């Protein structure tokens, strides 16, 4: 079993829809949680960062962490075609980025 599981998709939704992306994990020691967005042939871009449990909102993006269920989510409201990308969840039990475990990524496509 992988430490971090993420549905690879592809996920296709119409413009304006609410998108829900999810990851599950097995290591209860994880306490740093991140979401990255990666456009084709580009490097990952840090979207959201959360420490421990709870919600965090930034514009159209909301990140949720449920440590009791070992489950994290990223919600995208009013989705736009420019949101079409691969979304990677990432988490760590240590403050060093060398310990980050990445999900395999979910490919998202927003239809105009």
């Amino acid at each position, binding site marked *: 079993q992988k430490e971090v599981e993420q549905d690879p998709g592809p996920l296709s939704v119409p413009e304006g829809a609410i998108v829900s992306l999810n990851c599950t994990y097995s290591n209860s020691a994880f306490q740093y949680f*991140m979401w990255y967005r990666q456009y084709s*042939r580009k*490097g990952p871009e840090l979207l959201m960062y959360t420490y421990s449990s709870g919600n965090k909102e930034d514009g159209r993006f909301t990140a949720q962490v449920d440590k009791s269920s070992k489950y994290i989510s990223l919600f995208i409201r009013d989705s736009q075609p420019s949101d079409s990308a691969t979304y990677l969840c990432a988490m760590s039990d240590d*403050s*060093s*980025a060398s310990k*980050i475990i*990445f999900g395999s990524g979910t490919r998202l496509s927003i239809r105009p």
Partner: protein
Amino acid sequence: EAGVTQSPTHLIKTRGQQATLRCSPISGHTSVYWYQQALGLGLQFLLWYDEGEERNRGNFPPRFSGRQFPNYSSELNVNALELEDSALYLCASSPRRVKAFFGQGTRLTVV
């Protein structure tokens, strides 16, 4: 503020050759991380440099090596290239916290 920059963007090498990839971190960041993103394997941690020293390495053979210079830029060397080394190599820098900021990557193709 300039982000993490990597060069070259693309690199084509023959099996058995050596490849050198370069990375300049965000100004003020002392830590540099190297990752390999191969098709179907996701992001795999390679090496971590901080203050000129190798701090940690991932599960890769010794032919993957590198160094960090006094200005915190870094170099990744891959010796005795194999076909399976074909991947996107990503450099990230961090201000000593868990957040990692990535460059655009170097796409290495081994033929």
